[in-house]
């Protein structure tokens, strides 16, 4: 494991009606230890009742170990709990879950403790328990703020609205020529709450046909505004597309120059800020020359 703390999740799964229920226990044996430096011999399972610090001298070979079954610890063996011991976990449907944070370089053991049901017929039936055990470890994010954690979990896959269409994906073609484009996709708007609007500038190097359509949104109401830039700090509106039945639309043949499209939201900011809120836009542009067929 690396240096970052780890989140260890242990899930013990058994049928609710299982006669031989198991309990789990996590025993932390050694901390801040490199893998090759782990004193495995010192941490071999001990007989129950000997809750003392491990001692090499006191080690005796158990019958199970002699038979090569050291991992299959049974009978009078158990945790010494010389360090930290965590018993049990949260009960869920047919399951017991324990989630714990451990520092990297921690050597720990998971114990399953069996409590055979009394009054079972045969000895075999009494000793046999059906279960599944899942143990997983992954870098912990518990130290992160809730906001950051949410941000990680809810990383929105939708494309962000571009601030300019003068980019290779849109108008910028090879050798700086103006390129045609046509996209229909969902754009993310949940990060636009500061000003309730988004501006996309674009420069046309020649006369161009432009079409924009925005289907009706279930929650958000917005207008699409086409503005012509009249200088560095001023513009004039060519068209404001409001919702018409089920969509807003702009169809225009524009002379070369600088323009910007603006999405102006009328809805409450809370709706705009819903995680990964998107609007669908269909945008297309082609030069007049290529539009003439």
């Amino acid at each position, binding site marked *: 494991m690396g*240096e*970052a703390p*780890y*989140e260890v999740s242990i899930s013990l*799964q058994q*049928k*609710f*009606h299982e006669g031989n229920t198991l309990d789990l226990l996590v025993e932390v044996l050694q901390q801040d230890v490199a893998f090759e430096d782990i004193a495995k011999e010192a941490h071999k399972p001990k007989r129950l009742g000997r809750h003392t610090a491990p001692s090499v001298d006191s080690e005796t070979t158990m019958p199970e170990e002699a038979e090569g079954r050291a991992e299959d610890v049974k009978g009078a063996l158990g945790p010494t709990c010389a360090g930290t011991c965590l018993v049990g976990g949260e009960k869920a449907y*047919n*399951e017991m879950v324990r989630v714990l944070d451990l520092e990297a370089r921690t050597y720990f053991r998971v114990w399953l403790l069996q409590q055979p049901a009394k009054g079972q017929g045969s000895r075999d039936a009494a000793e046999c328990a059906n*279960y*599944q055990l*899942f143990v997983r470890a*992954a*870098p912990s*994010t518990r130290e*992160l703020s809730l906001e950051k*954690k949410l941000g*990680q*979990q809810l*990383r929105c896959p939708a*494309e962000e609205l571009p601030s300019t269409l003068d980019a*290779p*994906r849109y108008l*910028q073609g*090879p*050798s700086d020529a103006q*390129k045609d484009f*046509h*996209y*229909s*996709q969902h754009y993310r708007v949940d990060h636009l709450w500061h000003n309730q609007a988004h501006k996309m500038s674009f420069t046309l190097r020649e*006369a161009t*046909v432009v*079409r924009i*359509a925005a*289907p*009706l949104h279930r929650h958000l109401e917005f207008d699409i505004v086409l503005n*012509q830039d009249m200088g560095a700090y001023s513009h004039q*509106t*060519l*068209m*404001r597309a409001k919702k018409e*039945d*089920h*969509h*807003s*639309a*702009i*169809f*225009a*043949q*524009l*002379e070369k120059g600088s323009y910007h499209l603006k999405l102006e939201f009328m809805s409450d900011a809370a709706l705009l800020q819903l995680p990964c809120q998107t609007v669908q836009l*269909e945008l297309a*542009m082609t030069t*007049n020359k290529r*539009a*003439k*067929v």
Partner: protein
Amino acid sequence: MLAVRTATRPTEPVKRLTLASLFRHSSNYATVMKKEGAIHLERVEPGSSKDIEQPDLFVELFRESFEIAEDDNAGLAIEVNSDFLLAGVHVVLQNTATGTLLEDERHEGTSKLTVGLLAPGHYVLMVYTHKCITNIDRADARVVKAFDVLLDMRVRPLRKVGGRDGELAKAGVPVKISDGSTSTDTDKPDQETTPVLVTAEELDCRRDHLPLPDDLDINGVTSQIDWSESFYLPTYAFTSHEMLYTAREGQQALRVFLAKSNCKVSILSKEDRKLLAQSRPVDKGRAQLLVATDLVVGSQYLVLLEFSERAGLDGRGGASCDHFVMAVKTGDAATTCMDASSGDDAGRGALTSSLDGEFRSSAIGMKKKTEKRLLTIQGSGAVDLQLTLDYSAAFYRADLVLTVVTPSGHPERHRDAAGDEAAALKLIATETTPTSIDFTRKHATTYLFTNIVAGKYEVSVHQRFKAKTCRSLVTLSYRSWEAGASAVTLERGGLSGLQIYQSQSEE
């Protein structure tokens, strides 16, 4: 087995659509309509937008009424294809009694409206578009004086199958055209119309995905083909599908991308069904790419899709509503390349990604078929990395491979130049497998790598089939953040016996 198609699409478009004709022919082909000069220009002065209201720009292309009888028990499937930019048509269906409006689902160039069941009564079906505003002063400077509308349209009754009345569903639907009698058209709705039969699952599927087209030129015949859509397969079995393509001037090169692993794409000459080219797997076999160049203008070709029901790498083969992205682009491969000597070597430097989740971009000039960039992910521990490769400015599709760079600063492959099996295996071991690949974005592919270790990587961008003399530009966007794999997950492991202990009915 020899069969002849009895109905073929008329070569000449009609000037006017009628509902009777649409209902009659739509089971065989889409009716093509061309309306010359249908969309006029409306001059606007900057700052005077308040004088222009959207209803003033409304252009009606088709409007007819029909009646659904008590015992029809039918819905409706309408599909209109047009060039979005030049025609941009919308479809709307209105119940005249209640005033309820049903508007189309928009896809790229396609307006689709599928209604599972229509209540008995009168309906109005309307197709419309908008006038074009312009700020070009002089009329003689306007290259386009008015826009023609070219669209094709299908209207079919629809019935759900799979219920108790399975046989009844196949019965014809007598549709009464309310105002068709005023027409001089000789097509009268005097015969029953064959309904399109769909299962409940397919009906759901049609809402978000398109059926595979018979003709690649689904947006009309006015401009270059360039679409990317989600299609569905309404079958569980092996199946194949043919799509017609007619090569036109400036469109002698064809690129078909199919984001599905258990399939193959081929192109055949329509005349003699001679195989001309086949697809190759890309993105680790998760998709297929076919590129055909030097097609002959005026010749017709068949693009053949062959699907297997066996689960592919995506594990989706044979699933109900099996849907996938298919993207088609035509062009002239030569003119889509930049001059090999032109431009500078955009973005040859190494790339650095911070763990702030912010996108950074770098343009990559593709001189060779493969270009490599060193990517350093700052920080330590596990991170997630998202790479988006945008090839919108290129004809040849690009894909990428992410490889771990060793502490010595060289990718693993450089140490094993012998090319033997061991080296190949080692190369595979150092390649980082993406957790997911998203093909839904047009002209771009997004690769998500989760829980990888921060450090140095090599990004290799490939353009298959590209000629050596062709230079093109792709854009690589990248962002990274601390791994979120230990955040809440619903994943519970993949053991088949899991459900034995998860039965809530035993509680």
